[in-house]
């Protein structure tokens, strides 16, 4: 069986975990942001980022280190409803400013680690999901979906207010940070594994251009 790839557009959600929101909160009213975000802050992972199960992430074009962005992607069916979900590794070039769109940080080739298959189900099935991240066999992060700012039904409703998700689209619910606001990182030679009960893991070996 061919490993899974998204059939539609993949959207990501920024600042949707309580710990990162709280760390940002004192700065949200300062320049250049001036106010906390009201609507969901989204971004697109373009098709060139899709890295199917079994493929390595190749660091290139001057990138030597990446943030690991563990998340759950909700897979959309024909009536804009959720029909399943996937673990994803939403890699990004570390960036500290959330002011301008993150195309060059998030849309690089291979920057979305995919699992082999989708887990069918409804969002209620995953409201308390815990996702584990291991780097070279060592645990580096545990993400708990009970910590979402907008829970999944709320996120879907608030996104649906301005755009209709299409069959095959994927909505990622957000990535959490560590206690200091950073994300676990990976470099060439690392092997990163994302796993959760009931889901196909996302295992990626990071390489670079010799």
């Amino acid at each position, binding site marked *: 069986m061919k490993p899974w*790839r*998204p*059939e*539609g*557009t*993949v*959207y990501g959600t*920024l*600042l949707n975990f309580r710990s990162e929101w709280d760390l940002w909160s004192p700065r949200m009213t300062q320049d*250049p*942001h*001036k*106010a906390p*975000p*009201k*609507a*969901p*802050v*989204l*971004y*697109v992972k*373009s*098709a*060139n*980022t*899709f890295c199917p199960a079994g493929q390595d992430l190749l660091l290139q*074009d001057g990138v030597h280190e990446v943030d690991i962005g563990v998340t759950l992607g909700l897979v959309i069916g024909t009536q804009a409803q959720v029909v399943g979900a996937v673990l994803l590794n939403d890699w990004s070039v570390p960036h500290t400013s*959330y*002011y*301008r*769109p*993150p*195309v*060059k940080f998030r*849309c*690089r*080739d291979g920057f979305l680690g995919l699992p082999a298959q989708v887990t069918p189900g409804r969002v209620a099935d995953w409201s308390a999901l815990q996702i584990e991240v291991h780097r070279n066999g060592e645990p580096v992060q545990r993400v708990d979906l009970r910590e979402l700012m907008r829970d999944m039904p709320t996120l879907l409703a608030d996104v649906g207010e*301005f*755009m*209709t*998700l*299409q069959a095959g*689209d994927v909505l990622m619910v957000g990535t959490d940070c560590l206690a200091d606001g950073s994300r676990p990182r990976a470099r060439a030679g690392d092997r990163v594994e994302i796993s959760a009960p009931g889901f196909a893991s996302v295992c990626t070996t990071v390489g670079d251009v010799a």
Partner: protein
Amino acid sequence: MKHARIAWSGAIHDAIEVEGQLLLTQGPHAGRRVDFDEVVWLPPLAPVPQARTVIALGLNYADHARELAFKAPEEPLAFMKGEASLIGHNALTKRPADVTYMHYECELAVVIGRTARRVKKADAYDFIAGYTVANDYAIRDYLENWYRPNLRVKNRDTCTPIGPWLVDAADVPNPMVLKLQTSVNGKVTQSGSTADMIFDVPSLIEYFSSFMTLNPGDLILTGTPDGIVNVNPGDAIVTEIEGIGALVNTLVAA
């Protein structure tokens, strides 16, 4: 050649422009000519096997950057859109009832023709299939300073009309000297030239392909010049680029 993608007689067809009509080029009606007003115009883009990458530029004309009180960017200000925001020529775009400032943006849209990675400016034109016109509407009421311009402003259902034609690159000898114009209910409100882009088309292809693969059918919307005004339900907005086409759109209350 000018290519269109249309719905007519219960099916979707590819067509080309011939003597002010549409000549169907494939399917059971191949060879038949139909009038422009007989058809539903779809975005003039062939289907692609995976999600189409739609890149859009902000502040890519010196005058528009000034109008919005920003200094010209040192590198392209790019954001991404989902393909689902695209609609065709002569379509209806929804304007929410509670907003005060929704504006059009007339933009030259570049359609990629060949897989492009680490392309140099000097070779960039070899990777272009053709050009079309996009109207990249924005609703400024929803602008927030987080990944700005945020998707609630720029990725709304019905808010990216595109078309009517995909014009072959070979028929556009210099895309950097084209007049752009927008009219609202027949009155010209925006006029400019692609000559005033801050990052021209070859520079954009070099920039994006320096870190990402562009695939055939991917789009780059290259930004808009000075002259944006609020538009209202019932307004007919025509965004036009010399030699590429005139894209008509009508706003409806949502």
